């Protein structure tokens, strides 16, 4: 089993989700994050004082998948999340030694 983690632009979540559903992915877990990288942040001004914000909002997606699905999933995410502008984000894959579905106690692929 593997764990695919993707950091994407928030407004791309929908497209990513849909393309994953297209691959038969049944579930995923999402959370808000903020990213630091090549993409510039922005400036804020309050009563004349200027503040530089280097972090930009990102969405973090986690998907537990079967080994053989990893590549197509990574490809699907990259395709769906791409805008070709700086800050599109990253995808990485981490080994998962076991996955359990809490409701049933099922393990491995059955847990997905």
């Amino acid at each position, binding site marked *: 089993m593997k764990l695919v983690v993707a950091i994407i632009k928030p407004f791309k979540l929908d497209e990513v989700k849909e393309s994953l559903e297209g691959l038969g992915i049944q579930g995923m877990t999402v959370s808000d994050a903020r990213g630091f990288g090549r993409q510039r942040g*922005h400036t804020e*001004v309050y009563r004349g004082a200027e*503040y530089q914000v280097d972090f930009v909002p990102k969405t973090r997606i986690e998907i537990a998948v079967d080994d053989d699905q990893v590549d197509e999933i990574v490809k699907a995410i990259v395709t769906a999340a791409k805008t070709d502008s700086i800050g599109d984000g990253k995808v990485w894959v981490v080994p998962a030694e076991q996955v359990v579905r809490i409701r049933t106690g099922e393990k491995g692929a059955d847990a997905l």
Partner: protein
Amino acid sequence: MDTGDTGWVLASSALVLFMTPGLALFYAGMVRSKNVLGTLMHSFFAMGAMSILWVLVGYTIAFGPDAVGGLFGKLDFLGFSGVSSDAPHPAGLGATIPHSVFALFQMMFAIITPALIAGAFAERIKFSGYIAFISIWLVFVYAPVAHWVWHPEGWLFKLGALDFAGGTVVHINAGVAALAAILVIGKRRGFGKEAFVPHNLTLTILGAGILWFGWFGFNAGSALGANGLAASAFLATNLGAAAGACGWALAEARKDRKATTLGVASGAVAGLVAITPASGFVGPMGAIAIGLLGGVVCSWAVGLKFRLGYDDSLDVVGVHLVGGVVGALATGIFATAAISGLDASAGNGLLAGGGFALLGKQVIAVGVTLIFSFVATMAVAKLVDATIGLRVAETDEVTGLDLSQHQEVGYSLAEGSGLSITHSAAPVHASQAPHPTAVRVPQGGEA
């Protein structure tokens, strides 16, 4: 000068001014969080710019001695010159209160009317373009219509059309202007595809509460005294709001068996809009009927934008245009001379035995306002669009108005500490921090 009347109109003026921050919240709660400040700004800045414009030139066009054919006023009151605090308005508008009190009471109407329009093109208008648009609109659209309807020599006034507190002048006028403006500005990116849901309904409910509260000044203050007319206008106002809230809720309940909080708040506003022109002319039962009508009809009208495909962000057309028309026509139906004290011929609507006479005049007033305001606003919008520009750049729209137009964010609730500061002294611009950073996320912004 009667101190009781003067005190009441002063209090009413404060109430009407307070409606604009209320409107700011009502609108701001419905946009996405990345546009909350930009939306608040639309109302708040109007309090600044419109006040001054009104004093300088707007007032005299609306309430100066008639220049020609009841179309607009002479410039006698330019810069409020000749607006006395010791004597009433020469044309007898508010015979028991100082002229300046009448003028400042009207100033509050001139603030909120342009601000109402802003709800239609929320989330995509350029701030500079917005200022230009409402400024020109106040002088060339609002002021003349106010003259027609409210000045004793205004041609619609002389025609006998009734508008107690602004059904045509304020709501229809703002509502149709909103329609014209959004046809020029166009839809928000993603309209009809993406979900634009209210980001903070507590602001919207509070705003609706403030509007309801302030509307007592709007309508009952329009009696220009603390008298029986003010009393019945006050009563009608509360009942219009109440019935509107119930009407919208009932419509929702019929549709999917759930009344929504936003629906009830919207219904109250719709009811207030509908009762506005009628408030001094109808009794409690008439007020309840008009409010119900306003709530039910508007709850249906807000769906039109999806069907017809115009992007009226916060339903200014659905609530103010439609609600205003409902109220103006209903005035011709429910008006009762016994309440208003007008003589029967002028003050009785259809149900009070006045026949279709009054209703006919109301239709004319509505029609004329619709046409004039639509055409004139279209011209103003196109002019501004062609020069300063009305629409923000797409990336600015995606980023949100708060950051793109004002360099601010509304909320930094979960902010960490230890952020660096680019520079402190207001006027200096060079960075003082080698690696300036801030870990806060602009709420609702986008990467």
